[in-house]
């Protein structure tokens, strides 16, 4: 492991530890739950940042895996009455869904535009399906799918092996913080290794990578499935801070997700996380101002980001910092 990578991982762990120790003590309950939602969305942004920024796969429907993770968690937790089983199931379902969808897309060698169109379509199909599950007949075991209302009775995470000991909002916040840190560290390690370097090479030039003997389909499928798993984890965290509902699959979230990554900066892992926090903070604030329309603010922010910082916030800051030091940064 290089010194730079070790340092980045150490900083990530330190920040996670600091946030876990300090924020539950200083934030009010509502703010803490809101912060957990922000973190869940940051994990979701990280999943898109990984597959789009490094794998070159623009998924317009990353929320499909986010929603599947959330719904799988809620359904499994209600049926097993223990999150010990619900969490692995909720990770497995979106991973398998991403692997299945990715198999047809990448082994079918469809172009990038169709990948965007298909992923968007899948998330919208799931959105419509989830909305149409209102009747009593729509239940999986003990869990009613709830149609438009979703599953308000989504159980909270519990202490492993002790279903009665559900975690407090403070504890769920801490779990979310470390889940984000873990995803970031795993993605960092993955990208520093052979698999990650080949994925980036395929993003740069798929033909050249294949002419050197790499089966690009396998690598794209691998990173897309991993992105599905991380989005599923985001869905679990979201389900624990709010509850699952069809909006998790919605265009509203999938559109915002792309904006978070674009504002934060593609080709970085930290950028999408920062983008998610920053844009959510701004739109949440705009929502409290009666004279402001949060969607208009979001649109203006996107336009400003695209025109003023086409590479995104973090790469622009890095470039500016590099120039200040007289160093040309990659």
């Amino acid at each position, binding site marked *: 492991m290089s010194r730079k990578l070790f340092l980045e991982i150490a900083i990530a762990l330190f920040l996670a530890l600091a946030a876990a120790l300090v924020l539950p003590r200083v934030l009010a309950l509502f703010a803490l739950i809101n912060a957990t939602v922000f973190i869940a969305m940051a994990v979701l942004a990280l999943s898109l940042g990984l597959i789009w920024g490094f794998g070159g796969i623009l998924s317009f429907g990353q929320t499909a895996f986010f929603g599947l993770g959330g719904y799988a968690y809620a359904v499994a937790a209600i049926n097993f009455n223990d999150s010990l089983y619900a969490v692995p199931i909720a990770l497995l379902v979106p991973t398998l869904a991403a692997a299945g969808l990715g198999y047809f897309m990448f082994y079918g060698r469809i172009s990038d535009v169709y990948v965007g169109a298909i992923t968007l379509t899948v998330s919208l199909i799931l959105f419509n399906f989830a909305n149409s599950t209102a009747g009593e007949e729509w239940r999986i075991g003990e869990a009613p799918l709830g149609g438009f209302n979703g599953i308000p009775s989504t159980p909270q995470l519990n202490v492993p092996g002790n279903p009665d000991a559900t975690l407090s909002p403070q504890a769920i916040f801490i779990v979310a913080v470390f889940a984000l840190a873990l995803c970031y560290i795993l993605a960092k390690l993955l990208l520093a290794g*052979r698999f990650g*370097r*080949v994925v*980036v*090479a395929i*993003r*740069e*030039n798929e*033909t*050249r*990578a*294949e*002419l*050197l*003997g*790499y*089966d*690009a389909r396998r690598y794209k499928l691998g990173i897309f499935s991993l992105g599905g798993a991380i989005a599923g984890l985001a869905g679990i965290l979201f389900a624990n801070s709010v509850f699952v509902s069809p909006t998790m699959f919605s265009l509203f979230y999938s559109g915002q997700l792309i904006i978070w990554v674009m504002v934060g900066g593609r*080709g970085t892992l930290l950028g999408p996380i920062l983008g998610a926090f920053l844009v959510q903070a701004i739109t949440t604030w705009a929502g409290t101002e009666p004279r402001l329309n949060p969607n208009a603010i979001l649109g203006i922010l996107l336009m400003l980001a695209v025109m003023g910082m086409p590479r995104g916030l973090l790469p622009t800051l890095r470039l500016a910092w590099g120039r200040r030091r007289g160093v040309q940064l*990659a």
Partner: protein
Amino acid sequence: MSMLLSARGVAMHFGGVAAVDGVDFSVAEGELRGLIGPNGAGKSTFFKCLTGQLRPTAGTIFFRDRNITGMQRFAIARMGIGIKTQVPSLFDGLTVRESVMIALRRFLAEREARRRAQAILERFGLDGLAETEVGRLAHGQRQWVELAMVIAPEPALILLDEPTAGMSAEETRRTAALIRELNARHTLIVVEHDMAFIRAIAHTVTVLHQGRVLVEDEVAKVLADPRVQNVYLGRQVQPA
């Protein structure tokens, strides 16, 4: 002499246009073959058929006695065919070292790949540019980076599509020397427009014209052939 590569009746049609029209072509192990022809003769398309970038509409291609017709390009590369394309095909966002490392990582562990990459960079005079992003390099340097990447996995057969395009006279001279040196261990097919360059490196030359083999012989004989001179002057000549 055993044939390393053998193409029989290879054709590549795009709609009604026959870019390659029934090419019979063989290369023996250890050979250095020149492949020439005017623009539009089908040289690059033929290379794309050999490397799996295009699936031929007709014909068969054998490499080491195995039928590779229509195989995936990565599978053909793994069998030992490397190609330097006409327009350098590179990883613009990666550094020169990372690019060469990618070429080696498929079959070498990290430490050995790093050691071999350093040796290759030194061999190509690229060690001073090792940490430079490939997208920032000049055209001639990009050609060298692609050559380094292609040669790194030690393919049995190397296809070079206009390796000296855009190079200075000095770089062209170095490339000719490198190709001769490579021929000690590899079989090569070189597409080139520069006849002096072809004369300097190749013993046997195949001329493509309108997607078919016009003539194949020793370089001096081919270049003196009136049919070859005519096609390069744009006169109408019927392929064999």
